[in-house]
């Protein structure tokens, strides 16, 4: 066992920077990929849930919508249904050979992770939108909001809140799954492990280091997301607005017999 710690020390000493920059690459790609994945997911989810008014919408609009939806549906199924490692090779080399475009491995990496995450997020967002009580939509319609306003001010903010755990989930999956991008020569954390371990023949020790780094990244992410979720939930009490400023100095009020948990009584 002493050699275990010695080996770790040596690995850290010689390859510390390699691990760190690998971890940085991993974080960057996952972050960018998750962000654009969410953007794609929201756009696709929104298009998939546009209501069709058979009476008022023109035939042209309905046909266009149906076609766009079919394409988006295919996109979601294709990217959810194939491994990212294959998608990476397919897109990176496909772009070069078929279209003569050299994407560069960074662009390719961002693109692949974004588009892959987008496919998952699209379904998450669609499910999130459908999970919002129809009463919210009807309340918005009843004061004259159109579909876009209803989505923008009422449905999507609530959807976002609901799917934060899923966004976090995707981000964590991305942190782990970017390891497959070494097939297009991305030098992420896993690639760092392969080079370090291969050079010193200390696979177990290097894997230990890398496990710890991955776990640290995912745990910190989970923690930050919890905080965000809590913050979005708003405060669990409210200030009573009163003209009597003296009353306010005595602190904040909880409405005496109603707690957040008992929301609706039917």
């Amino acid at each position, binding site marked *: 066992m002493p050699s275990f710690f010695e080996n770790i020390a040596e690995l850290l000493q010689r390859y510390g920077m390699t691990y760190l920059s690998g971890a940085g690459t991993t974080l960057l790609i996952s972050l960018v990929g998750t962000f654009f994945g969410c953007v794609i997911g929201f756009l696709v989810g929104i298009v998939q849930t546009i209501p069709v008014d058979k009476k008022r919408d023109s035939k042209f609009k309905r046909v266009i919508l149906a076609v766009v939806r079919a394409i988006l549906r295919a996109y979601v199924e294709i990217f959810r249904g194939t491994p990212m490692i294959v998608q990476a090779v397919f897109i990176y080399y496909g772009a070069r050979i078929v279209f003569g475009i050299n994407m560069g491995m960074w662009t390719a990496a961002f693109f692949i992770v974004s588009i892959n995450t987008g496919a998952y997020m699209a379904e998450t967002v669609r499910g999130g939108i459908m999970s919002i009580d129809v009463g919210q939509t009807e309340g918005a319609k009843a*004061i*004259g909001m159109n579909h876009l306003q209803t989505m923008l*001010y009422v449905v999507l903010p609530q959807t976002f809140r609901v799917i934060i755990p899923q966004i976090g989930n995707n981000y964590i999956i991305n942190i782990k799954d970017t390891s497959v991008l070494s097939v297009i020569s991305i030098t992420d954390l896993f690639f760092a492990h392969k080079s370090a371990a291969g050079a010193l023949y200390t696979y177990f020790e290097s894997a230990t280091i890398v496990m710890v780094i991955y776990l640290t990244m995912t745990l910190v992410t989970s923690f930050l997301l919890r905080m965000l979720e809590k913050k979005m939930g708003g405060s669990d009490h409210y200030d009573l607005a009163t003209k009597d400023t003296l009353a306010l100095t005595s602190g904040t009020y909880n409405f005496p017999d109603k707690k957040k948990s008992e929301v609706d*009584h039917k």
Partner: protein
Amino acid sequence: MSEPILQINHLSKSFGAHEVLKDIDFHVCNGDVTTIIGASGSGKSTLLRCINLLEEPTSGEILYNGSDITAKSVDPASYRAKVGMVFQSFNLFNNMSVLKNCMIGQTKVLKRSKEEAEANAMKFLKHVGMDPYIHAKPAQLSGGMKQRVAIARALAMDPEILLFDEPTSALDPQMVGEVLAVMRDLAKSGMTMLIVTHEMAFARDVSSRVVFMKDGVICEDGAPEQIFGNPKEEATKEFLARFMNN
């Protein structure tokens, strides 16, 4: 008599093969307080939802100030901005404070300035006694409070007519009174109201007219004294008798 604000002609609505509204003719004049009563499933909510275009009528016309709002060319959103609706389940926006709930329609739909919207919202929140709670979120309020906010939200849009669909049915008995009190006030102020309710005493006191629905048709329709005191139709008598017994 004044020109009707709402005139419904031969309105029918089917869900699949189920005909829920059958050839309804009906009108509401400015300043009227009309209550709709009837057994569960008789189509009261569906009628109200058709009037607000939350349901698409199967046939017939709904004339609002003389023009048919079921026409293809009418934008439902801009029509609904003029017609307020209060739901049984409140339907306040969960992601907004009480104040924001009463402002969002004014700023986004009516394009009022923030200051104007806020002043107007405060006016109506005061009206319903909810001005101390402007910072609260809907989930932090009792049912009666939520419904009073929902009424303020509808009023803040300066609607020409207000529709109520069983506004007190989801409330604990001790909260029914506070909401009915607000509605009584509104009725006195001359607001045009169309109210679906199971509160018979309220219907008798505040309405200028009572409509009794049964199985998708308007069975009887008259002044509250007549409907409650001397109903002509057998079905009305039966319904009221059954209702008074529970």
